[in-house]
């Protein structure tokens, strides 16, 4: 039986991909960030998950303005790194887990989630940067990936409550997959940042840490935070944190925090990550 054994929430700042790809990850600017991920990288090397359900958002790479799926699940065999305007990142292709992905997609639709299924797409920094943070620069990614792309760009994006409920449904789906698989779920994006307008550069250390506290707790108050609170407190792009709720919803009522790290800034963004284990 497949099982979700852990959840990771993590920022997915494009500049971190640049730091890895250009070997700058030990310099003064990036050193403290990568140091914060060190424990997690070692933990992942020990855990050896078979599959990661990777919740992220497409940043106008695979989807143009024409089509905006709220929840799109990648059911393909592999995905190439997207050219975001300066050439694709020099990272391995991402291998899908089509069997598990289709199983999850089917289960979710039966569970009244209105999924969009996608077979072929390129994946951008939202998906590949977290892989680099967790696994460094391997010849080949050590996990298969089920990409789950969430619209967090055009409003309304899905509610926190809906994201949490989707996570719960994903956990049910994984548990009904017959093959033995060690599955992790990652929620990516955030933390506080604003990339547009005169208010650009807003960061909110206090709120971000309160959010991490809420994720680590045994109650589900975090699912009821309204969009406007993310926007006011954490900048227009801080809304990406709703994707962490899909991860958290998949872990059940109680969780144990294995690691937690927060650093300001990386480019325009507050970097944070948290590693959680179901504790029910």
């Amino acid at each position: 039986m497949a099982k979700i054994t852990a959840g990771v929430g993590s920022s997915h700042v494009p500049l971190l991909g640049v730091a890895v790809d250009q070997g700058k990850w030990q310099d003064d600017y990036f050193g403290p960030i990568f140091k914060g991920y060190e424990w997690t990288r070692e933990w992942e090397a020990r855990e050896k998950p078979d599959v990661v359900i990777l919740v992220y958002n497409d940043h106008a790479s695979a989807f143009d303005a024409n089509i905006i799926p709220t929840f799109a699940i990648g059911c393909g065999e592999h995905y190439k790194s997207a050219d975001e305007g300066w050439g694709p990142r020099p990272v391995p292709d991402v291998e899908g887990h089509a069997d598990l992905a289709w199983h999850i997609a089917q289960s979710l639709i039966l569970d009244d989630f209105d999924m969009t299924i996608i077979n072929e797409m390129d994946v951008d920094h939202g998906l590949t940067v977290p892989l680099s943070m967790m696994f460094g620069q391997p010849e080949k990614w050590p996990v298969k990936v089920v990409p789950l792309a969430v619209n967090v760009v055009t409003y309304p994006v899905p509610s926190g409550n809906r994201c949490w409920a989707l996570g719960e449904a994903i956990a049910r789906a994984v548990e009904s997959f017959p093959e033995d698989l060690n599955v992790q779920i990652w929620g990516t994006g955030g933390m506080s940042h604003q990339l547009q307008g005169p208010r650009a550069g807003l960061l909110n250390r206090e709120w971000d840490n309160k959010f991490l506290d809420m994720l680590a707790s045994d109650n589900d108050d975090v699912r009821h935070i309204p969009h406007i609170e993310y926007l006011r407190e954490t900048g227009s792009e801080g809304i990406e944190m709703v994707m962490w709720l899909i991860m958290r919803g998949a872990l059940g009522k109680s969780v144990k925090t294995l690691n937690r790290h927060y650093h300001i800034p990386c480019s325009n963004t507050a970097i944070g990550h948290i590693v959680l284990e179901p504790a029910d």
Partner: protein
Amino acid sequence: MTQETPKQNIHEYLAELDDIPGTRIYTAARARKGYWINQFAMSLMKAENRERFKADERAYLDEWNISEEAKQALLKRDYNTLLDLGGNVYFLSKLFSADGLPFAEAVSTMTDMTWPEYRQMMLDGGRSPIGNRSIKGGY
């Protein structure tokens, strides 16, 4: 079953989104208005289009169903005006890349700071949310 988040009326929801200082939330209204600005920007993901654009920006823009105002803003890289006209930063970032401009530097042009000032603000902990949360509330 857990408690439901209280559902909000869409008009109230959208009105709140307009109450954030110095921020244009990418609502449906903006997505509609800026549709072709964003599709133009997306076209720059292809190397051949970037070359054609660089060779003659005006001629390339004239191939698109974009208002003169938006074309001028694109030519001037006036990103705040482009946000007003429905541009979205993830689409517009294809233009940053075409220009070879780092993302954060391009973002800084939307603020009242120079790029070095903006960079220093970020190193110092970023822009504070205090006073930046609500236009009406002023908090």
